[in-house]
């Protein structure tokens, strides 16, 4: 089992890295101390609407530290989903669903070494996910460099509503390395690597592929997707923040991605943050472009039933581009009139995302020969409205 060998070797190296970082923490003679995240509570309404899909709900985060050594946090998050997306309406009917996610975390600071441990559980009628994460980071080289590594493990159970005999498992491991570097007194960069391996049932148990079928009036039929049972992906990113000659910041990001399913992707993002101190406001603007190739086993229309071992018509595995334009506004206020609180903020962020597919066709356009339907595209709006309180 090469995967098992790889995983155990990777774990050994990860442990060696952790040991190296801890040794470094013990012997390096640097000056400024790392700090735990600030005590805060966030209450957020989130919304997503587009392509026939509507998802919204609350998210609540509470974080509290003790003696500048330990900080504990908890997050409760709900997705309320109403879906009549093109995947759903072409083979089934609209449905509603609810997903609840609970996370608990503990952060510990020892000198310049920061450690975090967290657990997340997500539940919906046909999907359960459990995951835990451990990460450690260390400041060194005069606090100009921060190196962090983390490992996460997830175990999911996939079910299919209306089919009591269907139950499958998925195992996921994630390895991440983060390096943040001060370049000048006005510039920071961050480099990130994340590798993910999955084993188990990886497709959506409802989604179907379409294939040419002369016996059907419309010229094509549907059958269930079949995905490989393993997937390994690598993502690398570099981000930079630059403080402008006046009080404002520019953010740049480039990320590259590839996986064993044949998907190659990249995205870049340009952002601008501009405070207006007179009114206690901070404005943000951003543009993001994303592009990916299709998975090797993706096709909008297979030539026949069971045409190959693995088959997908999941539009997330198609070739497509997205463009995002986003904006946000934050109003900060003094909250010391509230017993135990220092300050707070009210925030509204909205993103408009445009999706354009290169090989996923709009089958809701009937009366056309299979494979000649227009290419699909849609746009969506993502909203985050939240209040943050610091104490």
């Amino acid at each position, binding site marked *: 089992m*090469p995967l098992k060998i790889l995983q155990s070797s990777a774990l050994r190296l990860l442990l060696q890295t952790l040991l190296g970082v801890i040794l*470094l923490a013990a012997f390096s003679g640097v000056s400024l101390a790392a700090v735990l995240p600030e005590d805060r509570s*966030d209450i957020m309404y989130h919304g997503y609407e587009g392509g026939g899909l509507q998802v919204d709900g609350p998210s609540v985060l509470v974080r509290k530290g003790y003696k500048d050594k330990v900080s504990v946090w908890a997050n409760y998050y709900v997705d309320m989903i109403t879906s009549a997306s093109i995947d759903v309406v072409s083979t089934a009917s609209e449905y509603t669903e609810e997903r609840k996610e609970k996370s608990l975390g503990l952060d510990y600071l020892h000198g310049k070494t920061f450690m975090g441990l967290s657990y997340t*559980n997500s539940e919906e009628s046909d999907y359960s996910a459990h995951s835990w994460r451990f990460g450690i980071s*260390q400041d060194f080289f005069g606090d100009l460099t921060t190196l962090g590594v983390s490992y996460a493990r997830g175990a999911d159970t996939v079910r299919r509503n209306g089919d009591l005999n269907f139950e499958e498992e998925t195992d996921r491991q994630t390895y991440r390395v983060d390096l943040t570097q001060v370049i000048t007194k006005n510039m920071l960069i961050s480099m990130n690597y994340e590798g993910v391996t999955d084993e188990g049932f990886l497709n959506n148990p409802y989604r179907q592929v379409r294939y040419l079928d002369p016996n059907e009036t419309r010229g094509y039929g549907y059958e269930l997707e079949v995905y*490989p049972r393993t997937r390994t992906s*690598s993502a690398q990113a570099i981000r930079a923040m630059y403080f402008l000659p006046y009080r404002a*910041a520019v953010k740049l990001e480039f*990320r590259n991605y590839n996986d064993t399913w044949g998907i190659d992707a990249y995205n870049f993002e340009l952002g601008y943050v501009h405070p207006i101190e007179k009114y206690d406001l901070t404005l943000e603007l951003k543009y993001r472009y994303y592009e990916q190739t299709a998975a090797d086993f993706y096709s909008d229309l297979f030539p026949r039933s069971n045409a190959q071992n693995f088959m997908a018509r999941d539009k997330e595995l198609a070739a497509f581009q997205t463009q995002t334009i986003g904006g946000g506004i934050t109003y900060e206020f003094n909250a010391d009139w509230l017993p135990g609180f220092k300050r707070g903020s009210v925030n509204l962020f909205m993103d408009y995302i445009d999706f354009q597919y290169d090989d996923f066709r709009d089958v809701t356009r009937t009366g056309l020969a299979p494979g000649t339907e227009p290419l699909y595209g849609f746009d969506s709006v993502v909203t985050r409205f939240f209040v943050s309180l610091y104490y």
Partner: protein
Amino acid sequence: MTHFTSIKSAGKKLLLAVGLLASLASGGCGSMEIKPWVSPFERNNLADPIMSFSRDPVAAAYLHHVYQAREGARGAEGGSGGGCGCN
């Protein structure tokens, strides 16, 4: 077999990256007296909240979740990462 070969290749890259960082982290402890080229008193701009890669963790995690659910790529998002537990 193709998948296992690719897994092995991707894994080797990962091991190399982690190994290099391990060497960087654990080696040369005796030569750590590097003088910071940006002094602590020159870091006002860097410490400004507008220079944070991820100012609001809850809002950032939500947007990562949206992208992970709608796009094929995953991982190396900004902030601390974490994934969404979804598939």
